[in-house]
Structures are given as C-alpha cells and as structure tokens.
C-alpha cells in the first residue's frame, strides 16, 4: 500500500525512538517489531528497512521474522477492525460463514484492508468465548452469535455513523450518495 502524506516522517520518527530505547542487540528484534507495530498499526517496508539497518542485520532477516509470526501485519489496519474467531468451536458453528459475509460485503479478502483504509478483516485463533460462538471482535468489542444478518447490521451501524458525521461536517448525505455512484 502506498504511504499516506506525512506517514513517512511518522514511521522514521517512531522507529528511531524505539531503536534508541531498546538497543541494537539481535535478541531485541521481535520486541522492536512488536513495539513498532504497536505505534504504527502495521509494519511498513520502510520501517523494516530501518530496523534492519539499526540492528545491523540483512533486511531479509527482518522480513523473514515479520512474515513467520502471525502477529505481524504488512497492511495498515482499517479504522475499524473485524477479527473473526476461527477457533474450533466457532468454526463448527459457522465462523467461515461470518468471514465470507464480511468478504462479500467489504469486497476484500481476509487479511486485507479496504482501499479507503476504513475496514480491515482478519481471522484470529480462539478468543476464548466459545460459548458465544461464532464470535467476531469488532474493534475490541466481542459480538457473539454472528450470522450474516448480524454482519449486515454491524456494517450498517458504521455506515449510519459515518453519514451522521459527514452530515455534521456540512456534507449532505445526498452529495455523498452522488459521489458514491460516481465512483
């Protein structure tokens, strides 16, 4: 994904701060990546290059670690994140149906972010609420018993929220509708 305006500076600043704080031992690679992701929400290529330079190791080593572990993501997270639980109990009662519904509605695949960076979708291992299966984490809120209808409901709630906000910002809903049909 292309960097947004000003993102480059933010990346450089945080990576430098974290490296200064953590030191440059190879053993610190994973904690450094964790902290950078905490700050930036993901691991942009630029950050990985800077970390490699900072720890004096090849970039491919950093990339190797970042792709080996599930925690690290290469896409920026959306403003709102959907994490669909794919633990055994959730899978049994339709976790994959929930994921498919999100994919269909958002027109992205799991692990991706919508081009406007508004929503991102991922699968997670058991979140430990097996009694409410299938479970989706909407941002940090747990939604239980998620059916495709509920997926529609969740997305609708966000849409209305955005429309309200945009209404406040002086842009009428109609204008937005127009823009949407243009796109």
């Amino acid at each position, binding site marked *: 994904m292309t960097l947004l305006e000003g993102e480059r500076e933010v990346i450089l600043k945080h990576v430098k701060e974290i490296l200064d704080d953590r030191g440059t*031992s*190879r*053993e*610190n*690679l*994973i*904690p450094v*990546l*964790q902290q950078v992701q905490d700050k930036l929400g993901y691991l942009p290529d630029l950050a990985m290059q800077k970390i490699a330079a900072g720890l004096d190791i090849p970039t491919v080593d950093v990339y*190797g*670690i970042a792709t*080996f*572990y*599930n*925690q*690290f993501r290469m896409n920026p997270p959306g403003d709102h994140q959907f994490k669909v639980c*794919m*633990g*055994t*109990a959730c*899978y*049994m009662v*339709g976790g994959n*149906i929930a994921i*498919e*519904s999100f994919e*269909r*509605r958002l027109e992205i695949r799991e692990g991706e972010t919508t081009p406007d960076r508004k929503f991102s979708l991922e699968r*997670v*291992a*058991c*979140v*430990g*609420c*097996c*009694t*409410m299966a299938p*479970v989706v984490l909407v941002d940090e809120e*747990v939604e*239980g018993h998620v*059916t*495709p*209808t509920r*997926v*529609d409901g969740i997305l609708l709630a966000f849409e209305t929220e955005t429309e309200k906000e945009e209404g406040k910002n002086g842009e009428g809903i109609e204008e937005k509708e127009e823009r949407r049909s243009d796109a």
Partner: protein
Amino acid sequence: MKVITAVERYTELKTKAQEKVNSLQDKPLVRIGTATCGLAAGALQVKETFEEEIKNKGLDVRIQEVGCMGHCYAEPLAIISKPGFPSFCYGKVDEGLAKLLVDSFLENDDPCYEYAMVALEPNDIFPTFTDFPRDAYEKKIILEHCGFIDPGDIEHYIAHEGYAALAKALEEMKPEEIISEMTASGLRGRGGAGFPVGKKWSLCKDTPDEVKYIICNADEGDPGAFMDRNVLESNPHQVIEGMLISAYTVGAEKGYIYIRNEYPLAIQRIETALEQAREIGLLGDSIFGSPFNFDLEIFEGSGAFVCGEESALVSSMEGKMGIPQARPPYMAVSGFRGRPTVLNNVKTFAYVPTIIRKGADYFKSVGTSDSSGTAVFTLVGKVANTGLVEVPMGTTLRQLIFDIGEGIPAEKEFKAVQIGGPSGGCLPETKLDIPIDFDSLAEAGAIMGSGGLVVLDEDDCMVAIARYFLEFTQQESCGKCTFCRLGTKHMLDILTRITQGKGEMADLEILQELAEDIKMGSLCNLGKTAPNPILTTLRYFRDEYEAHILEGRCPACMCKDLILYYIVPEKCSKLCNVCVGSCPVEAIYTREDGLKAIDQEKCVKCDNCLKTCPPEHDAVIKLSPPVLPED
C-alpha cells in the same frame, strides 16, 4: 543475634494477609468474574451497574474483580457475600439482574433464590457445589482458588497458603529433596508430551553452569483451548511460586514467562503480580532472607503455533524464527542462550506449590498410577456446560462429557469428541469409556495434548473437521522438514477435493500413506502429530469419507459444495417474508403461488434463511447430495 527464618518471615506475611482478607468479611462483598470469558459476556457492564446502583443507594459494599471459576456457560458470574448469609453465586448476570440484586439482596435481605445458581458454603437453605453432579467427578488442585480470589492482590493468594511452599522449600528442603519429591509425585509435564518433571529438573540441576534459566511456556496456541490463560488470569501467583521453587532447585537466577501476545489481560495480570511479588521481596535478591536470588520477566510471543515446541520457543526468544532443533542436547543441558534451561508449561508449574506443601503422596493419591494428579480441560463445542474442568486422571471421557458437561444440547446425537487440538484425534462413542491419561489416549490415536476438548454432534462433518485441523497445522508448519511442509499441503489438497465431492477412493490410501510418512519424517511434534486428526477420522469415521467420495453426499450437511438449501413447499407459510429479508444476495423470491423458493444460482449457502425461518414452519432444509426434489 537471632536469625529470622524464611518460615517466620512467611508467617508474618501470612498473618497480615489473613487479617486483611478477614477484614473484608465485615461488610457485603460482590465478586465479579472478569477473566476474558467473563469480559466477553459483558462482566464490565455488570460491574459498572453494581457500582452505580450501590453508589445511588449509598450502600457500603465492596466490589472485587476475580478470575474464572470454570463455569463459562453461565458468564457473567457474580458472587455476593453478605454477613448472615452464605455466599451466593449468580449466573448470566445482566444489568437488570444486577439492579435487582442490589435492591433486593444488598439493600434488603432477599437473596433472590430464583436467580441464584449455587451457594458457596454448606447451609440448610440452598444447594452448594457439592450438590452438583459434576462435583462427584471434579477434583480441583490448580483451579481451587480460581474465580474466588482477587488475582490483582498478592495478599489474597498468601492468605490461602500462597508462597508457603516456597518458604518451606527454602528453609527445610535441599534441592535434591525437592527433586525426589517431584519424582515421587509422578508429576508429568502438562504441555502435552508428559515428560516426568523430576527427571527434567534433575538433569538441569546436574548440568554445571553459572547461568541457568527457567521458562514458563504460556504460548497456548491450540484453537479452542484456554486453560493456561485462565490459570494466569485467575491465579498468577501460583505459577510464579512454582517457577521460584523450580529456580531454587536447579540454581537459576533468571526466568521468563513466554506468553502469547493475544492474551493482553493475562499479561497485565502477570505484570501486576510480578510487581507485587517484587515489592514484598518474593522476587529479587535474597528471597525470604535466604541467599536465593531470582527475577522474572515477560516475553511476549508473536503468535506461531510451532513455538509451543520448546526449542522453537527458545529460538524465538533469541530473536530468530521459531524453528525446532534436533535434540539432544536437551533444553535442560543447553537451552536458552545455550545455557541449561527448565522449560515447563503453565499448569505444570502451577502444581508445584501444592506438591511441596502437601507432599508427593497427596498428589500421587489422585489420578492413576502412571498419570498422577489431575487433568485440566476446556470443555467446548456441542456440550451443555461449556467451561473449564479439572478432574483426576483416569476419569472417563463419558463422565466428562455426559456427567460434568451434562451432555449434548438441543437433543442432538453425540458423534465424536476431538481431544488434544490439531495434534489430537477424534474419538467416537465406542471409545468414550477409556480413561483420560497420557497412555490410554495415545493408544486410541488421540493425545492428551494441552487439554482442549471439543464435543461434536450429528451436524458436524468429520471430513471437514479433519480438514480444519490440517489447514491449521499446514499453515503453522515452520517449513523445516519436507514431509511436514509439503506432505501436509498435499493432504490438505486431497481433503479439500473430498469435501468438494471430487475425491476418489484411491485418495484414502494416499492419505493413510502420507500420514504415516509425515509422522516418520518430521523432527518435532507438530509434524509428528499433524496427521492424527486424519488418521483417527479415517479409522473411526471411514463411512463419512466414503459418502463424500462415492455418493457426493455430506452426511452432516456441512460441506458447502455438497449441499443445497431448499424450501419445502408443504411447510412454507405464504404469509411470512422472513427468509426473503434475511437473504444477503436476494436469492429468495416469491413464486406465483405465493410460496418462497431459492434461486440456486444466486444462493451463497450462508445458512441465514434456515436460521431465520420461524420454528413453527421450519420450512428450510439442507439437502445432500445437492439435487432438487422433482416437483
């Protein structure tokens, strides 16, 4: 000058802690279970309601957060203790019930028996846990205090004999004696493999080195298993104490808790616990005034299933990819940074204080001769009482599922139990009477594993389940061994084909052969056990594979490519439109005669119409093989 001994120091701590805990009993106390399971069910909102209502009414009541007591099906849970009454536990508490309880019980004296689930102390008016059928089978050693004490306050643990074992070990026992006690107790590692703890510790102790490490493996990666998380969230000090005793025994001064970063609450609770332990001198230099120094740090794992394997875990702590190494040398000889390292699971460490305090004989008296002690399971899936259970080794699966879990809900038929997660196997009804212990389960083709137990009913397709677990291990294979890397991929392709109805009978032979080759050709247990779900389903549920291959039929109507949704015209009510509205792709239409029907071209098989069709009509059904009935 009189020397103050460790036990004396401990007694002082304990007296103080006990006074504090006793003083809590002078006024009403509300305890709310806020482990992850409770939080997910809305425990925080319940807590806020309690706080607000109590404040509004000007009542003098304490509110305390506790961990999980294992009755996850009834979360959020609240325990109310009021002087003059036994403590009552309430299940499925929502804001309405919280308000009612404040009003009726805390302000007035009506405990609302109709909502109470159980009383904690024996009394003449209300049943206690001993009256539950599951109590006859349960035996709590490491879960004893979980859900009852405040995990955020070290004094609660100390008041319940916490750190007594450490004081005893430091003052009265030599490291050799601790090792012989552990060996005599017969404690085997609870991470899944079941290696004798005494042997591991002794090997590490006897390896001469100035620097040694203790690592607690809390990288619980099995989908559907959460007992380690619950232990850490509900009673973290128990694990810390076990690690301290282990460190004293082998002569280590530094330890790590390797925990998944997906467990933020557990991490937070361990951090608090470590801080409090440091404050009163239970971590740091000269613990209890002895020459023993030890400190602990948290290492956050980054989510790789293979890191549950000890050498992979250590690699990842060193900043490398989590790739297992060939052994020997064992971890106990050359582990983290090449130093002797004791690496045990959360539950293993959690047993240690009890064994030291009550003696090896006590522990040995529970369980079977080869597997002593208890087993902790997460009971999930199609079972009425989901949650966390601790039973003596040797309890049968049937007792666990039908007596403790109270059977299958919705009058469905039991089909199989999946035990041990992706490395385990699926056992059918005929195997339910085997006792749960390391060896019996292995014989049946499953493994003890870390303790995830998923109950499956008639609606679950065994081929799809096998495929689900294989997909998991295939993604998590680190890629070092060819058989594990490519073999699992090949098996997954075959299983995918079968679930799509494109399989051949010859595939079953290839699956069997590949499964055995992968077991032989893999270095670590991820590869060695990855084929278990396939081998057991092939062994016990071959007919389901055959139905997929020969008839294009999924007996459980689960495999998408082999089913279609159909609205039975005789059952459909013309007057209702629920299914039409529920369809996300507008595949349901109204026929000329007013009945509803599904456009099979458009249908995405999302199950919505079947779920929403009112039970009095129950008109939507799944058909497999996917052939429409002739009108």
